[in-house]
């Protein structure tokens, strides 16, 4: 824990006081300014999603520690309130309610799966809470009370498909859309299919298939892919969930398919998942994200080292072997974006902070990011990476500059848009 020095405190309360004076209602906030600001952390620490979500809790706590070490926000320390919704969707809503009504947190960082986000959404909207959601998702959402720091389909799915179709990516012409059977893959494939059809890929060159959670037997599917890929020009776009990837890639290799003839582009395999995998069968296949641990920037070097040190120092499992990945980075910069917005708004009040977030820029580990001016999402770079033997990625293609997030895909919902400044959230575009 950081030492809360008197000087920092004075500076902070002066700043807060100045801000308050400008706003014109001094009494309330100066009274609060001595107290730490409560910040909710809503990630599953047990159950099936714990494998992925524990790392997000770790990085959020690390960011809070860093901020506190530098004097906190407006001179006030951040006090994390960590709850465990245990991968149980109903419990997510309950815990969110507890954070908002009982602990009265100023902001919450949390959720991974779309179903957990959907379950807390009404809680945040009805109680005017603030949630930072750090994972790439299927879009089609535009909540006033959520900031999405992960990618939307047009920042991950579409560029990846575009890359596969480009000369540089190998000019692939047939696509096998394979996913685990739940909301993200279903919606992702709906968008991908619409995109591919719009780009002139004939219907019979697109195959779509789903497997149950924890599916282990990919014999039949790989056999199908093998026949689908005969004649060349075929690629697999995979939204298979973490666990099932090992049996899938193993079977893929064992049945004689190779990345040079039928590459797999994965949307749910990141460094953190690769930690528990024998990567030999995955080498040469691709993934699409907005950040990799291998991104070569000075601030990323610092970030990766800081995260490893944090894990070692706090005796977290994995220790120095821990890795960073896209959702971890998005979880991390989310905390800083909120901090900057609070400092700009000079208040922790949700509506003021919300407006201050618009257009906020931050030098994230992977490079500069920018919060959208109106749609609650994030401008991000798009990176296509090739899986290496050590579970890291080599970036093979990079978007020019930052890509604007489109929560409503132009391929499936061309008539809809998301704007919280000129409109009230989701709106109908005029033809």
């Amino acid at each position: 824990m950081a030492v809360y020095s008197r000087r920092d405190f004075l500076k902070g309360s002066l700043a807060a006081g100045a801000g308050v004076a400008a706003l014109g209602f001094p009494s309330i906030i100066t009274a609060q300014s001595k107290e730490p600001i409560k910040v909710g952390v809503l990630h599953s620490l047990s159950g099936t999603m714990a494998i992925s979500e524990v790392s997000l809790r770790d990085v959020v706590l690390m960011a809070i520690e860093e901020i506190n070490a530098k004097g906190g926000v407006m001179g006030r320390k951040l006090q994390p309130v960590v709850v465990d919704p245990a991968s149980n969707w109903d419990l997510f809503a309950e815990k969110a309610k507890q954070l908002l009504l009982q602990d009265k947190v100023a902001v919450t960082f949390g959720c991974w799966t779309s179903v957990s986000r959907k379950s807390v959404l009404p809680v945040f909207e009805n109680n005017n809470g603030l949630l930072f959601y750090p994972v790439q998702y299927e879009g089609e959402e535009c909540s006033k009370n959520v900031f999405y720091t992960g990618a939307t389909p047009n920042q991950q799915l579409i560029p990846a498909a575009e890359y596969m179709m480009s000369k540089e990516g190998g000019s692939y012409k047939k696509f096998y859309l394979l996913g685990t059977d739940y909301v993200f893959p279903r919606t992702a494939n709906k968008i991908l299919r619409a995109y591919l059809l719009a780009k002139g890929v004939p219907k019979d060159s697109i195959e779509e298939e789903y497997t149950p959670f924890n599916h282990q037997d990919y014999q039949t599917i790989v056999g199908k892919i093998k026949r689908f890929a005969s004649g060349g020009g075929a690629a697999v776009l995979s939204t298979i969930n973490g666990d099932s990837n090992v049996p899938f890639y193993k079977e893929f290799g064992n049945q004689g398919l190779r990345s040079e003839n039928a590459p797999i582009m994965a949307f749910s395999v990141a460094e953190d998942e690769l930690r528990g995998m024998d990567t030999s069968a995955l080498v040469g296949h691709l993934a699409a994200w907005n950040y990799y641990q291998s991104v070569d920037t000075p601030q990323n070097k610092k970030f990766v080292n800081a995260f490893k040190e944090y894990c070692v120092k706090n005796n977290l499992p994995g220790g120095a072997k821990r890795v960073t990945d896209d959702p971890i980075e998005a979880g991390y910069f989310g905390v800083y974006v909120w901090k900057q917005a609070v400092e700009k708004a000079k208040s922790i009040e949700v509506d003021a902070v919300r407006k201050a977030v618009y257009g906020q820029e931050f030098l994230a580990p992977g490079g500069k990011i920018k919060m959208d001016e109106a749609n609650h999402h994030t401008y991000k770079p798009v990176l296509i990476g090739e899986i290496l033997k050590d579970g890291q990625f080599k970036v093979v293609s990079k978007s020019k500059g930052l890509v604007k997030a489109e929560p409503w895909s132009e391929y499936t919902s061309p008539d809809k848009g998301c704007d919280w400044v000129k409109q009230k959230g989701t709106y109908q575009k005029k033809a």
Partner: protein
Amino acid sequence: MRVLITAVLLAWLIAPAMGHAAGPADVERALADLAGSDADRREAAVAVLGNTRDPKWLAFLSALRDGNVYVRKAPQTAPPGRSAPETAHPRSKPDSRTPLQIVVAGAKSTQGDKDVVEIKGASDGATLGTVAVADLTEIAADRRLRIAIKPFLDADETRGQLANPDPAARKGAAVKLGNQADAAAAPTVEAALAAEADPWVRHALAEALALIRLAHGDAAARVVAAGTLGGLHSLNAVPALKRLESDGAASAAERTAAATAIKQIERWTFLTTTLETAFQGASLASILLLMALGLAIVFGLMGVINMAHGELMALGAYTTFVVQNWFRTAWPGAFDAYFLLALPLSFLVAGAAGLVLERGVIRHLYGRPLETLLLTWGASLVIQQGLRLWFGAANVDVSSPRWLSGGVPVMVGLTLPYNRVFIIGLAAVSVAAMYWLLFRSTAGLRIRAVTQNRAMSACLGVRAPLVDATTFALGAGLAGLAGCALTQIGNVGPSLGQNYIVDSFMVVVTGGVGKLAGTILAAAGIGGLNKGIEPALGAVFAKVAILVAVILFLQRRPAGLFATRGRNADA
């Protein structure tokens, strides 16, 4: 531009000697162009460099693509006695008057607050020491440049793969060449075909050659190529043949040849698909059988519903993981052999755990199925959490030994993965061993006697508690063996057992409690049915359909396939 690249590639593939036509002067000019800003000249420069086919320049292009090529002002060659280190006079930008030097960056590191990098001269490869990154200007490989570089590196990679000692890599390269069907690649393929000994790689090369001829030959050559492809049962050729068949410009002979070939290939594909489905069914059945065997013995012979069966499998899997790590550090040379030691060890570890479980608690609760059920469930949670504490919550990676990776091609279009063949064999051996043990050995006689009538066996001098303990340990050991085998196809994590326990119970219950033959038949039936309907309905519905089928079946025959008649049916 495209024509230029194709032409260059063509020249390069057909006549290696021609490729060296670019003289040193051309290369120097190309390097200078690269550092410039004219996109067309940059692209042409890539062609010149790739054209040399010199590994040095190919490596340079690869570095360029990865953003590791920089330009800097050439340091003035200082006359002896006068040192003029270039970094001492930092100037803002390299201007056109001072000669430029192109360098390739190596390892990057940090010195103090500066990022530094080792550099080498692009032309001579001479080490130029370590300089600050800030003093270098990157030659950015934009999209257009990367696209220009790609064919050169790809062709080089394919050439390398064709010479790879691994037949699978050679075959992959041959398939790639066939799919690209580039006329220029024909001589390369012919040369490779002449030198190739492996029949499967030869097949792929012959297929590639026929595909190239089908795409680029004259009408007569196309007819021959179509015939060849038909004879080769080449599934890869179907799209090309279909195009030819429906090509209005093609002659009747060509179209007939294509149609005949397609028919021939489709008949063959039907055969291989059927065989493949049969094999997949057998493979799934063997896995189910391995998982259920131990459970069937404990459940059937002892009446204990062992909810910890899945966790005993996890113990076997983690034993394999530990043995693997042990080999990796102690005998990396003999790494491939780790699995042979892991098999018996996982049997022993899980068996020992089973023995402890039986002697420790279960024996006090015989004849009370509900309590044993709760107890073993508790034990399963303890083992699971223990594994989580010891090995961490995340999955661990178990590498397949080389002899269990890849597959054996048995006929064109049908490759049987080694790991699955191995598991089928392991299941067969386990079943045979169990049969021998239960029905041909004295120990088995005792087990059967205790199962049928515990009191009478005890009267006759059979030590019933000892028999109980060995039977339970045996069942647990089989679970460990299954866990070890499962590491070769799935994940290893603390919750591994939960993923398999439902399937195991399904097999045992469907088969009929206490009947080995029932378990075997149920495993084969469920495995075969699952794989039979999966191609048509998909994985999700196949699973649902199987569960519905099992429920309906058990409603008709609650006792399973082989109902045990007599007293222990109602025990």
